[in-house]
């Protein structure tokens, strides 16, 4: 499709649906890439405690804990945004209220992340010896 003049310099004109579409993809790819690794590291449990301890010790590193916080955020966002997609798909008339529904989804995500960041961020700081 040819670009119209009004489109130049804008990213899809910034509707909330465009941003959540992008975030849904990015979080989805991040989660499946982690899952590929996570299936293998969990499967090591079948090779006994020594092997499992050696592999799972990676998860006690502060930086990996920070990535883990990102993973929890990604799963939560993907789940809530997926729920929003289903509302729009199964009850198409709700698309008219896309803006408030998107805002509500974001609000629920942010509110849920507050205690999670508090808890997981705390253990990152503990690992760093700052707490």
């Amino acid at each position, binding site marked *: 499709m040819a670009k119209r003049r009004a489109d130049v310099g804008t990213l899809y004109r910034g509707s909330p649906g465009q941003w959540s579409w992008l975030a849904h993809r990015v979080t989805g790819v991040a989660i499946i890439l982690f899952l590929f690794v996570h299936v293998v590291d969990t499967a090591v449990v*079948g090779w006994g405690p020594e092997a*499992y301890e050696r592999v799972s010790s990676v998860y006690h590193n502060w930086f990996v804990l920070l990535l883990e916080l990102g993973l929890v955020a990604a799963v939560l966002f993907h789940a809530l945004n997926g729920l929003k997609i289903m509302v729009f798909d199964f009850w198409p008339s709700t698309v008219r209220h896309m803006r408030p529904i998107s805002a509500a989804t974001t609000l629920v995500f942010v509110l849920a992340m507050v205690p999670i960041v508090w*808890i997981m961020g705390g253990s990152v700081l503990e690992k760093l010896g700052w707490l």
Partner: protein
Amino acid sequence: MATPTMERATPLAEPAPRISRERPAGGFELWSWLFMRLSGIVLLFLAVGHVLIMHVMDEGIDRVDFGFVAARWASPFWRTWDWAMLTLALVHGINGLRVIAQDYVRRPGARFAVNASFAILGFVLFVLGTVVVFTFDPSRWGAA
């Protein structure tokens, strides 16, 4: 056809502006569309529950060691949970990658190679995970 209620600054390229989202007309893509939503609902409980239990509550990942896994998998409930999550998450995720590859990998040969690689990887991980979830026996190492 309903008329759009919102004024638009620029005319839409489509002759008839659509109000609702697109859904595949039929065939495999419709099943894929339906599967993503149904598995999504189940994963909403399995994966979000898993992440909250294993990574957030009670010290999170710090308390997870061999003994923790052994105690957890003593219950068929958690083995079933983990296996169902493994299966659904792999199919959901790899189908998601396939949908993304449709947008970014344009050459049919390359797209087939990408999709086949992820499908094979997913199948290998499914077999590995399934064998471990159902054959894991901590008594071999004298643990509870």
